[in-house]
């Protein structure tokens, strides 16, 4: 587990303090010797080290590993091999465990027919843009609310946090109308990345996380910089940002994953088949595709996620654990 242990509300956002360091020391690492752990759990270590305890432990371990693999890995295996089967083979009763022959035609067809390259590119564009914009907007806003404390700052903060009470789904219709015809400006943002980026930046939870983190930055640090003549932008940039890396990481991950996993909103605001995100594209094209091509497209859509997740799993899991406690 990552060293960011989290309690709701008081999530990832404590800057590295001596207490934090201490915690790090206590964080469970993979034990070198079996059957000991650096932290105590419900099962007593003494019981665990008896012969009976060991037998039970191993049985449980095997059962858990096997059943989890069956529940979470086997479907993926079935998906990857299913895409290599012909339609006849897919409909064979009983099914074949291994594809009759190794064929990647399904994948090639899926890539070509569904335009998966475009769809993936779109999704990366939406997620990446949302990430940058969200960081830029929410970091500056949270900093202003935390350190510059303008008039009515408390009201603004309260209004922003109030949005946490209302899940985006229930205001999707008026939000959709807003995007379709932006008040005052009269712009139609449908089918543009802005329709994803801008609403993503209006995230009360990010503001909340960031502001609380900034609150904990010692005042002296900033005042010292101010006396040196640094401008607020400069202070934010050179003083605040570098020590805020953990929370920036959390906010980044939250934002990217939210955009990546969103379905309804892109469904509404990106109806053009060339602008769709990968989920919407596959869903709307799924009906016409032969089964093996559809499955292949699911595999292809999953690969980037699996790879990215594999590489960044620690930070992603830590970030989302902090962040999924969101209203």
């Amino acid at each position, binding site marked *: 587990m990552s060293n960011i242990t989290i309690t709701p509300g008081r999530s990832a956002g404590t800057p590295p303090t001596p207490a934090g360091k201490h915690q790090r020391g206590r964080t469970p690492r993979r034990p070198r010797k079996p059957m000991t752990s650096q932290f105590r759990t419900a099962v007593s270590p003494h019981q665990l080290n008896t012969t009976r305890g060991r037998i039970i432990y191993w049985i449980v371990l095997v059962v858990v590993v096997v059943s989890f693999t069956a529940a979470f890995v086997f479907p993926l295996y079935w998906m990857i091999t299913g895409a290599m089967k012909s*339609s006849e083979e897919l*409909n064979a*009763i009983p099914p074949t465990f291994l594809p009759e022959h190794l064929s990647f035609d399904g994948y090639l067809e899926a890539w*070509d*027919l569904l335009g998966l390259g475009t769809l993936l590119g779109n999704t990366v564009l939406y997620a990446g843009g949302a990430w*940058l*914009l969200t*960081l*830029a*907007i929410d*970091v*500056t806003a949270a900093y202003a609310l935390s350190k510059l404390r303008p008039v009515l700052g408390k009201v603004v903060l309260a209004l922003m946090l109030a949005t946490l009470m209302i899940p985006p789904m229930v205001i999707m219709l008026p939000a*959709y109308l807003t995007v*379709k015809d*932006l008040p005052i*400006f*009269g*712009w*139609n*943002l*449908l*089918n*543009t990345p*802005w*329709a994803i980026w801008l609403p993503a930046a209006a995230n009360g939870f990010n503001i909340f996380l960031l502001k609380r983190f900034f609150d904990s930055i010692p005042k002296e640090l900033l005042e010292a910089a101010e006396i040196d003549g640094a401008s607020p932008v400069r202070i934010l*940039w050179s003083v605040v*940002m*570098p020590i805020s*890396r953990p929370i*920036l990481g959390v906010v980044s991950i939250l934002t990217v994953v939210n955009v990546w996993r969103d379905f309804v909103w892109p*469904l*509404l*605001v990106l*109806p*053009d*088949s060339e602008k769709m995100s990968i989920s919407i594209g596959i*869903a*709307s*094209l799924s*009906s*016409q*595709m*032969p089964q093996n091509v559809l499955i292949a497209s699911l595999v292809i859509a999953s690969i980037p996620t699996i790879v990215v997740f594999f590489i960044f799993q620690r930070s992603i899991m830590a970030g989302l654990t902090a962040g999924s406690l969101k209203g």
Partner: protein
Amino acid sequence: MKSRKLSMLLAAAIALTAAGCGSSDSSGSSGAGNAPTASSSSSGAAAGAEAPVSITVNCMPPKTNAAQRKTFEEDIAAFQKQYPYITISKATDAFPCYEPRTFEAKLAGGELETVFYVNFPNVGRLMADGQAADITPYTSELKTFADYNSSLDLFKKDGKVYGLPTDGYGMGLVYNKEVFTKAGLDPNTPPKTWAEVQAAAKKIAGLGAGYVGFGEYSGNNVGGWHFSASIYGRGGSVITDDGTKAAFNTPEGKAVLENLKQMRWADNSMGSRLYIDWPALMKAMGAGKMGMMLGAPDVLISLRNDFGGKFENYAITAQPEAKALFNGGAGYMINPKSTPEQIKAGLKWIEFEFLTPGKGQLDYVRAKNADLTVGQPYPDLYGADTPSGQAVVELRKANANIDAAQFAGWVEGSKGIPSKAEPGPYAQEIYKILDTPMSAVLTRQDANIDQLLADAETKVNSLLASKG
């Protein structure tokens, strides 16, 4: 190292927002940019037809249907050559052309193409909601307009024309000859009554696992759509002639459901899968293990071009015991936000691609050479005795490359049977309600048909009452 990269990106992003805050007119306007919606150019109306105009179209055949897609692309090029002032800036290829999921979102957002495809059940609703442009003033410029058969009536409201049908047909019974043969049935004498359908379905289902005798829809409005087609065939109606009340809680309506219930539960000849959207049943039919389904002649072509079916295996015959045929089909409408120039250009495109005998999709010479089928008895747009109607029929006959027998049963059997239009402007909502009895008889052995129809009747009555 890592943090520096991050901070550089952040710097870029902050700069970006700052720019966004400062100069409001810069970036966001790209959203309104090249939309087909023409808010910009309406002033040029007086400049005449030669002013440059840009339109968007949809219903380009999907990549899976490569041959037809190629003809469509050729046509776009040829069309722009013929009318140099018209640019088709985009052709969209959603499939099916009416794909409810994206169509509805686009429609609500006013994001539909300048010229957009619409199937008959949606026509009334779009006209009622003002979501199609009035094209009455421009119809005189269409050379074949006078030759239209009654399918055009569907696109008329209060004496105005809101679109052009490009495809019209009556329902029939599509069946798989190969499956018939396997089941020991004669593929050349398809069922003529529902009793025969039931018997044939039972035999087909007896072929073994995976075989389905008769496939039917039950969700996403297509269930109600096929219920309507079935009840029309039996001589019933869905709503009263004045459109104020439900009219399907009748012996005819009961017969439709009773028949399905028998096949599903007594004979177990309908499989256990529900087909909840249009492609689902098509996919199953195309896979070659389904015996029969209700459908129009275009189903055969779509099975061939889009669902990988072996074309020669399929045939269509008349809907059993049909007293009236559900008037199916599709056409094109124009986005109401279009300028007059765009409407004119859009109509030119419809005319070029779908309405001119020997051109576009009616270019049967090219179709024959492009691995497409010629000879199916549709699209059926023009009156049989009109010049356009005769031209289409002759060209089709001269270039036919399919076995006419595949459609003969339908052509012969449907002769003289009156066609009946879909149930009013709220057809989609009514279909949605009728999905319920359809899915009920197909999922519950103890489904109470009287109760189901009575419930649906109440729902439709209150729907119609609320719509006034």
